[in-house]
């Protein structure tokens, strides 16, 4: 399953909740303000670091990273673009955490 998260982890606990309810093999895609969860060295970095450590694939959408001038990503966070987003949606069932 593909889980998209579009909220900043500094604003609410959506990202943490999402990670609490995922299954093995699920993919997380951070979009919109969700990409702030992918920033290295922040007070909330441990959330995504923990997910990656436990084997979850975490992606961030490049357009949203660029728009927010985010360049310092947590190690292991992968970057994808809109075409990649479409591929994910084609391949997985999607759960949008709003």
């Amino acid at each position, binding site marked *: 399953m593909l889980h998209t998260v579009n909220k900043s982890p500094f604003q609410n606990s959506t990202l943490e*909740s999402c990670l*609490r309810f995922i299954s093995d093999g699920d993919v997380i895609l951070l979009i919109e303000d969700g990409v702030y969860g992918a920033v290295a060295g922040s007070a909330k970095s441990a959330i995504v670091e923990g997910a990656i450590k436990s084997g979850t694939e975490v992606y961030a959408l490049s357009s949203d990273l660029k728009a927010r001038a985010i360049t310092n990503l947590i190690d292991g966070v992968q970057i994808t673009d809109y075409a990649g987003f479409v591929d994910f949606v084609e391949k997985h069932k999607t759960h949008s955490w709003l």
Partner: protein
Amino acid sequence: MSDDIKKIMFTVRNAPHGSIYVYEGLEVKLIMAAYDADISVVFMDDGVLALKQGQNTEELGIKGFEKTYGVFVDYEIENVYVDKQSMEDRGMSVDDLLVIGEDEDTEEPIKPKIIDAGEIAAMMAEQHNIMSF
């Protein structure tokens, strides 16, 4: 998993009266219950607060929906679950939960089932669609 019956899960993650999400979500559930779908509802995060019994919205001038949750079982929405951790984090126990119907035979009140994140994750994995409110 049958091909023609869709498994649809509704998640409720917002507190009840600060926004229209929970109310709108309730309307969607009741509409979807009229179709041939396998519906489940999971309350998690602040969504568990919508299940507190004794809500009185009279002074807010809005209808409230505790009574509507009370007919879930009559609408054949029987798979109603609450995340244990979210309840505990907010100081809620089973005694706080409202009733979603009564047993046809024994007339015992039915409450949402309290389950843990692992059980919810397993159910999520089986769904055709998941809708968040």
